[in-house]
């Protein structure tokens, strides 16, 4: 295999193989910024996980967003979403969703205040 101009080696297995042909995760659609972390039992019971799923569980020992997972695996976000959704359903990952003030709105003022304090202190 020849690396492309960005040094990446071409993928032999089509991305849909990772998701066994499915395009939607069971459960809700995770936003790009949803953060995932490993649950305690993950790695010990992960013997039957496919390679990509194991990689996700391992990298999420430190918090990672769905977008970061996709970038690290070099797969489209949609593929990462399916894999992460399955791992969360299987109890391997904990998902931290954004908290919005009202439905589709942005974060509430309490969180915005903390964000402001945090950015100002830099």
């Amino acid at each position, binding site marked *: 295999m020849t690396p492309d101009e960005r040094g990446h080696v071409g993928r032999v297995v089509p991305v849909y193989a990772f998701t066994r042909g499915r*395009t939607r995760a069971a459960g809700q659609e995770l936003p790009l910024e949803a953060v995932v972390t490993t649950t305690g039992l993950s790695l010990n019971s992960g013997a039957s996980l496919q390679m990509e799923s194991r990689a996700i569980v391992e990298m999420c*020992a430190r918090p990672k967003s769905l977008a*970061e997972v996709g*970038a690290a695996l070099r797969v*489209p976000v949609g593929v990462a979403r399916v894999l992460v959704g399955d791992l969360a359903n299987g109890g391997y990952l904990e998902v931290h*969703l954004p908290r919005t003030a009202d439905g589709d709105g942005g*974060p509430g003022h309490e969180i915005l205040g903390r*964000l*402001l304090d945090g950015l100002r202190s830099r």
Partner: protein
Amino acid sequence: MDSVRVDSRRPPPPAGRELIPLKVLVAGGFGAGKTTFVGAVSEIPPLTTEQHMTSLSVGVDDTAMVPDKTTTTVAMDFGRITVDEQLILYLFGTPGQSRFWFMWDELAKGAVGAVILVDLRRIDDCFPAIDYFEDRELPFVIAANAFPGTEVFPDQAVRDALALPEGCPLVRMDAREPRSCMDALVALVEHALVRSLG
């Protein structure tokens, strides 16, 4: 801390802690400095996420208006700032080409707001972004990115040229300078906070 870059030795949040992700969009025309901005404040090297506009993609069943949806890939730069033990802020550079704007709704949902970068030599490029965020009543600030050789226009002239709504902050900045980008972010969050209280 003098630097706006986060200390990479900062310990990861302990397992079991509840984390709260947040996001800010970095918008503006092609070449306005979106990637530079994200790179200047991110604690990780900026990453690129791809959304394939194919039948494989999740949630794009309603994009039949995109003629070549079987081949299109939309790439977005993004970065991260760990704000405190619970808050993690993600910065997403929006896709620059207007025909990918259907993606913005997913990006914009739940966002703190947007920093709209403006190259004052080409202000027309940022009108679509301003229209978009005004329509959706999402907080935004205008960040006039100082490109070398740009004529200095007074604030009011810039506000008039952009037809900025009253109260919308206008900041002068240099996207190559982390401190300058952080100041623009602070201006956005201040603005969003005031609006959330109103």
